[in-house]
C-alpha cells in the first residue's frame, strides 16, 4: 500500500504534523492493549460495585423510571442493520430506519395529542429548552414562565441556556402545599413567550392544563407541557387534548431503561402550523421513481447542515436507536397494552401510598398522582434515603437531593411505584422505613 501511495513509512503520512507535536511512541502514562477477557473482567468488577435496580426493592423516579422492557426489544435493536447504520441520508438503502422513524413520530404525536413529532432529541431536559427557544422564535418574545413543578434539573438547564441567549425566566420553588397554577396564570403578560409546566409534575401531581392553556392563548403565549413519564398518558389525558402547543418529554420509560442517566430520548411534538420552527430531524413520506411509497428525511432547511448559523437548532446526532427501542416497546404494548400497563402502575402506586402514609408521622402530599407521589416524613429525607440504601432498599429520591437548600422541602421523599415493584418490595420498604423513622 505504501508503494501505491509513494511513501516510505506510515510516519511519512503525518508530515503535516509539526515534529514537536508528533509523539515518538504510544502516549506516555497509559496502559497498552488488553485482551477481551481482561476487559470484560475489569468491567464486571466495576459493575459489581453498583447496586442494580433489579436486585433491590427499587422506588426511584424523578425523571427516570424503571419499567419492564420486553426481551424482544433489546434483541431487535441489536440487529446490526439498525445498530450499525448511520443517519439515513441515503434513503434508498435506509428505508428500515426511515419507516421506523415515521412510525415513531406518529406514535409520539398521538400519545401527546399533537399533530406532529420529530425524530428525537437528546433527552427530556434538552427537548425542554429547545421548546422554550422555539416558542421565543414563534412569538418573538423573551420571557418564559416555568412552573415550580418542573424538574429542577430541567430548570437548571433552562437557566444555563437563558443566561447565554438573553431569555428571561420566571421560576419558583415548589411547595408541598399545592401547585402554583395561580402564579403561572398571573405571570402571563404581553412579554411572555411561553409557560412551561410538567405533567405529572416533579412531586407526582396531576393538574388540568385547560385553564392555563386558555390564559396562554388569550395572551398570545404558547403552552409547553413536559412529560417525564410517558406511561402516564395511558391513564390520563394527553397535554395536546388540553391545548398545549408544544409537548416535550423524556422517553426512557419505554424501551430504553435507566442506564445511569443516558442515553435517553427527548420527545418533541407540536402543532402542524409550527413545524417549520421545530428543531431536529423529521422523516416524511414520499414516493420513489417507480411510484412506490417510501420515506426520506425532510424539511432540512431548518437544520444546521443546510442553514448553518440560521438553523433552528445545532442538533445533529440525536437518539435514533433509543427511538427505535421506544417504538418497538410501544408497538408491543399497543393501545391496550399501554392502557393496561398504566392501570397496573397506578393501582400499585395507590396501594403503596395508602400503606406508607399509615406509618407513624408520615403523610402523603399529593391529592392526585399517577405512579409517583411525595411522602412527607417526620425527619429530613436525605439521610433516610442513605439509611434505606444501607438496608438494601433503594427507597426513592429525596427532595433534599433535588432542592438542597430549601428547608421547607427537606422532609419530602418522592416515591415511584411501577409494574416492576412487587408486594414483597413494598413490604421491605415499609419495614425499612419504619425502622429508620423510629
Amino acid at each position, binding site marked *: 500500500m505504501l508503494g501505491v501511495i509513494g511513501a516510505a513509512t506510515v510516519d511519512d503520512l503525518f508530515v503535516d504534523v509539526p515534529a514537536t507535536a508528533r509523539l515518538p511512541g504510544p502516549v506516555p502514562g497509559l496502559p497498552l492493549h488488553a485482551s477481551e477477557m481482561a476487559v470484560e473482567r475489569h468491567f464486571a468488577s466495576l459493575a459489581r460495585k453498583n447496586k442494580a435496580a433489579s436486585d433491590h426493592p427499587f422506588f426511584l423516579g424523578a425523571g427516570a423510571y424503571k419499567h419492564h422492557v420486553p426481551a424482544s426489544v433489546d434483541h431487535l435493536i441489536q440487529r446490526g442493520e439498525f445498530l450499525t447504520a448511520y443517519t439515513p441520508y441515503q434513503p434508498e438503502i435506509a428505508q428500515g430506519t426511515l419507516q421506523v422513524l415515521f412510525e415513531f413520530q406518529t406514535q409520539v404525536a398521538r400519545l401527546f395529542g399533537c399533530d406532529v413529532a420529530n425524530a428525537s432529541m437528546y433527552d427530556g431536559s434538552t427537548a425542554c429548552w429547545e421548546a422554550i427557544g422555539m416558542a421565543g422564535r414563534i412569538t418573538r418574545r423573551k420571557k418564559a414562565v416555568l412552573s415550580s413543578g418542573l424538574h429542577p434539573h430541567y430548570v437548571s438547564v433552562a437557566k444555563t441556556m437563558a443566561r447565554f441567549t438573553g431569555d428571561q425566566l420566571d421560576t419558583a420553588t415548589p411547595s408541598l402545599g399545592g401547585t402554583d397554577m395561580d402564579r403561572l396564570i398571573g405571570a402571563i403578560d404581553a412579554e411572555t413567550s411561553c409557560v412551561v409546566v410538567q405533567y405529572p409534575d416533579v412531586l407526582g401531581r396531576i393538574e388540568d392544563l385547560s385553564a392555563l392553556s386558555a390564559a396562554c392563548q388569550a395572551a398570545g403565549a404558547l403552552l409547553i407541557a413536559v412529560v417525564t413519564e410517558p406511561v402516564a398518558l395511558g391513564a390520563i389525558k394527553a397535554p395536546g387534548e388540553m391545548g398545549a402547543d408544544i409537548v416535550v418529554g423524556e422517553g426512557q420509560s419505554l424501551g430504553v431503561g435507566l442506564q445511569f442517566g443516558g442515553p435517553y430520548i427527548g420527545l418533541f411534538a407540536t402543532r402542524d402550523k409550527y413545524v417549520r420552527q421545530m428543531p431536529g430531524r423529521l422523516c416524511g413520506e414520499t414516493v420513489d421513481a417507480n411510484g412506490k411509497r417510501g420515506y426520506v428525511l425532510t424539511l432540512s432547511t431548518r437544520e444546521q447542515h443546510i442553514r448553518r448559523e440560521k438553523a433552528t437548532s445545532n442538533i445533529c446526532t440525536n437518539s435514533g436507536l433509543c427511538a427505535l427501542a421506544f417504538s418497538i416497546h410501544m408497538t408491543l404494548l399497543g393501545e391496550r397494552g399501554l392502557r393496561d400497563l398504566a392501570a*397496573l402502575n397506578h393501582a400499585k402506586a395507590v396501594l403503596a401510598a395508602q400503606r406508607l402514609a399509615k406509618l407513624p408521622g408520615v403523610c402523603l402530599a399529593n391529592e392526585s398522582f399517577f405512579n409517583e407521589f411525595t411522602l412527607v416524613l417526620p425527619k429530613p429525607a436525605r439521610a433516610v434515603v442513605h439509611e434505606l440504601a444501607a438496608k438494601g432498599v433503594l427507597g426513592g429520591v429525596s427532595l433534599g437531593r433535588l432542592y438542597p437548600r430549601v428547608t421547607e422541602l427537606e422532609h419530602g421523599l418522592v416515591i415511584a411505584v411501577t409494574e416492576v415493584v412487587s408486594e414483597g418490595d413494598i413490604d421491605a420498604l415499609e419495614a425499612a422505613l419504619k425502622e429508620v423513622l423510629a
Partner: protein
Amino acid sequence: MNAPNAAGWRPELGETHLAGDETFTGNRALMLEERLIFEIGDATTTGVDLDVAPAAPSMLGSLARTAPIGLPGLSEPETVRHYTRLSRQNYAIDLGLFPLGSCTMKHNPRLNEAVARMKGFKDVHPLQPRETVQGALAVIDELAHWLVTLTGMDSVAMSPKAGAHGELCGILAIKAALEARGEDRKVILVPESAHGTNPATAAFAGFTVENIPANDAGRVDLAALQARLGPDVAGVMITNPNTCGLFEPDLKAISDAVHAAGGYVYCDGANFNAIVGKVRPGDLGVDAMHINLHKTFSTPHGGGGPGSGPVVLSAALSPFAPLPYVKREADGSLRLVEEETAGEDQPDSFGRMVAFHGQMGMFTRALAYILSHGADGLKQVAEDAVLNANYVLRSLEGVLDAPFGHSGPCMHEALFTDDGFAEGFSTLDVAKGLIDEGFHPMTVYFPLVVHGAMLVEPTETESKAALDQFIGALRSVALRAKQGDPALKSTPHFAPRRRLDETLAARKPVLAWKGDKAEG
C-alpha cells in the same frame, strides 16, 4: 398476509400474470415489503403479558383518559417480523464498507455491547445514593482520565450528549471565560469548510459568525486570520484534521496568535480518529475540543444516534466547565459535583447542560474500546486509518479529481470533486451508482468548499482486499459518470427503493400517518 395483493393481480378471475417481475404479494423472495404498524396492527392486539392490576381507588382526579390514543399493537411474533423485515432494508457497517467521510463508520466490537448491558451499568438510576454507584462513577472517572491524557488537556466535561452538544459546551465555556474577564467579544471565526454544527452553535450562543479564508492547500490562511484578530474576536472554531481531510500544520501558530489577541481556540475534534495516540491537541494550544465517542471510540451510530461528546478543556477554560462532574475525594471515593456544592467546588461553572450526567451507555462502550486497544493500539488506529485513506486517494489518481492531492498526504479521509464528469452528471449519480455496487456512498456535497464534494473515509476497519474492491467499484462508477452512461442516472436499480422524491416530501410534508383519519 402482510401485503395482501400489492399488484392487484387476481389469478382466480383468470387474469394473466402482469409484468414479468411482479408478484401477487409485491414481495420478491427475500426482498419483503412491509407495511406500517398502523396498517397491520390494531388497538386490541398486544405483544405483552402483564399482571392484572389489583383493585385500587383512582387518584387521577378528573383527568382519567377517555379518548382513544390511536396506537396499534402487534403480537410478539408479528413485532419481531416487522422490525426484522425493516432492518433488512438498511445498509450498515455490519454489511460492508461504509466510507462516510467525517462520520467515521468503523466496526463496532460486540464486547462493548456486552459490557454496556451488565446490569450494574444499564440498570442503575442516575439519582441513586452515591455509595450505590461507585462502579458507575469509576467508569466515568477512568474514561475521563484516558481522554485528558490522550489529548494532553487539563480536564474534561463528560456530560455533553453528542458532538454538537459538546461544541455548545466549549463555546459556552469560552463565553463564560470572557464574561469573567468582563469582556463582551462578539465574533467567532469559522472556516467555510466547517461542519454546519459549528456556525449553528456559535450563533446559538449569541456570537456573530465570520468566515476564515482558506489557502490553496485547503488549510486556514494564517496571515488572513491574523489580520482579522482583534478585541472583538472571542475565538476561532477550527476542525483538525479539517473537513477536507487535511491536518492544519499552522494550528499551533494560529493558537498563539488567537491567544495573543485575547481569544480562545475551539477545536472540532470530530476527526480525532486520524490522530488519536499520535498527536495531543493540548500540545497545539487548543482550549476546548469535543470528542465524538461515536466516531473515534466506536460506539455504534444506531441509525442517527445516540452519541456522546465529551469536551476536553485547557487550564484557562476548566474553571467554567459544566455541572455535574465526577470528583475523587481524599478517601478515594467518588462523588458528583452538582449545584449544591458548586459554590465551593466549581464557583465559575457555567451551569448544567443536561438533566443527568451524560451518556453512560456510551461511556462503557468507549472505555471498553479504549482498554482493548490501549495506548499502542490507538496509535495504530490512527496510522491505519490514515494509511487506508491515502491508499484510496492515490489509487484513484487520474480517475477522480482530488483538489488537494497536490499538497501531500491526506489524513483519515480523501476528498474528491465532480470535475470532469460528463454534462448532466453529478456527484449524486456516483453516490447512487455505488449503492448498486453494494456500498454505502461516501459523504457527498460536504465540505461546501469544493464543487460536488465526495469525502471518502475508509477507517482503519477495512482490509486491503476490501479497499481494492471498493476502489474498483468507485473507479467504474466514476468512469461511467465521466463517459455519461445514461443508465447511471437512474441508479440505484437494485436497492429496496429507486430514487425518492425529496422535493415532493418537502413541498407537501406528510410527517405522521393519518390513514385512519382520512377514512373516518
